[in-house]
């Protein structure tokens, strides 16, 4: 019984999170320090990242990165800060999530 209750709680928690989830899709320069810059920014400014997916693009010079965040109140500020990083070339905001996380979610 106990287990079910826990499950239900975590289900509720999940629904609540899904409502506020947003995904930021970035194109960044592809070099070894970029991930540190992005993650460093999030930890220093106390923003939570729920998920990260990053793959190099065909040209090899840039990578595409998706950041899953549920910081509704801070989202505007997060976007402004991410935009300031010189290695971030473009940023696109997807409210409500992005299918890349659904696809990868199947694997976990």
């Amino acid at each position, binding site marked *: 019984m106990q287990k079910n209750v826990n499950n239900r709680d975590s289900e509720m928690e999940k629904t609540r999170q899904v409502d506020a989830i947003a995904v930021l899709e970035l194109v960044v320069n592809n070099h070894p320090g970029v991930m540190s810059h992005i993650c460093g920014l999030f930890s220093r400014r106390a923003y939570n990242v729920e998920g990260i997916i990053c793959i190099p693009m065909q040209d090899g010079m840039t990578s595409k990165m998706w950041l899953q965040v549920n910081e509704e109140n801070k989202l505007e500020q997060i976007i402004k800060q991410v935009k*300031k990083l010189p290695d971030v070339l473009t940023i696109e905001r997807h409210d409500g999530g992005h299918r890349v996380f659904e696809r990868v979610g199947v694997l976990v």
Partner: protein
Amino acid sequence: MNTMNGAQLIVKLLERQGIDIIAGIPGGANLPMYDALFESTAIRHILCRHEQGAGFVAQGIARSTGKAAVCFATSGPGATNVLTAIADAYLDSIPVICITGQVPASLIGTDAFQEVDTYGMSIPITKHNFLVRTVGELLTIIPRAFELALSGRPGPVLIDVPKDVQMAEISFAQWPEPGRRTTEKATDIESLRAAADMINRAKRPILCLGGGIIHAGAAEAGRLLAEKGGLPTTMTLMGLGAIASDHQLSLGMLGMHAARSTNMALQDCDLFIAAGARFDDRATGKIVEFCPDASIIHMDIDPSEVSKLKTAHIALVGDVKRSLEALLPLVTENSRTIWNNQIEVLKEMYPMTSPEARVPEKPYGLILKTSELLDEGSFISTDVGKHQMWAAQVFPFERPRQLLTSGGLGTMGFGLPAAIGAALAHPDKQIVLFTGDGSLQMNIQELATAIEQQVNIKIIIMNNNSLGLVRQQQNLFYNKQLFASDFQIDIDFVTIAKGFGMKAVNVEAGGDLPALLERMLAEPGPCLINVPIDREEDVYPMVPPGASNSIMLGGCNAEKCK
């Protein structure tokens, strides 16, 4: 075809950027760069005694000139030592380029001798940083570092260069263009019109000039707007000098140690115009109670500052000088007599100093007396603590860049090396350092640098033999439990300074302080004067940390304030 090694390329690229002074310390991992400096006739190297000192010397140059300045450090401890000065530059948006040596690329990640992750450690305290992987990248990274440091909101950039990259040969046909400040796009005209309209309708507006005004060279534009609109004008610590302290519209500094009248006027204003200011907690106090009845216009070059802490009704994102200049014709001329008279009454009721506090043996008097004795065009450097706040409160700053002080990070030990940097950049000017006995001890080794370079700095120690601001807080907020804030030994700074080879004098009880000051200020080269200050001399008024700016302790006529 140009052929050279990486280190020579770095030095040549710095020369092409117009760099003529580099502060630093050599070590194993940056020796190729020092070998290249040996051959440079354009660059003068300033050998410091600690890398933090080198970082602050570069800051002193950058803050006093507005140009980017460079410091060198070796890998490992050299890099970790310089980081405090870089963090300080980051918080005050100062364009410093720090070039560190790193162990050879093949050894990175092996815990080699004097290896630390300089790149990783400098990410959160730089505007941007680079780890140079091949010698060819230097041709783009060095100019790019200058462009980044100077453009938009300025800031420090660190370049970590492995030793093998410094030694690698490179041949190239063409020199890259030096990195320059890029021009910002103009502020949106609709927002400017809306802002002007809001200013024109305001009954009780206050203009606040921050450090961004200094960086943007926008002091005159700020003053013209203030004068046309009859706008009482306050300044943040970083903005002091943006408008002359004796200007009739000047309210001096705002915040924790502001004049009572300034914070009271702010509580009452109906429009707060922040220009190049970032709503720091030391300026605003408890943010939800800051300017409670005011609309906010926020002008800043950094979009992430707008509405970060206080929601702006109108955001003017862009170069603050251009925004202020564009606003000027849109703002109607208005002397705002009622509002300015109201503030005048407050100023008279709650002055910053009293005649008793202005005798030269007291902190305010000492600072004011010094200001009277200084030539025009001199610079003031401070450390961090009581002396810094006293200077910020009463020194008659009259021009941008006159004050060099660590604002955001509040780094004790900033003052001496920063003063040396300012003196190197302005050899014909007087530089006065107001410091405390606590702060001076944090970078006291740079006395050697000052002597070696024979810079024209005058060090005034306001010596209360304690960590004064800590002591004050323990007295006020920690049940008077004074712990670890009073020094248990009395250091003889005059003997120490003389040991370094510096002229130095003590102010003795009953001595003629003004005459002594005058004599020391007239001496050529560096000298030091030690002035005893009573431990009980505190900085007032004071807003308790975390409290609203409406809650102020002490200061003249505090008892009249309900």
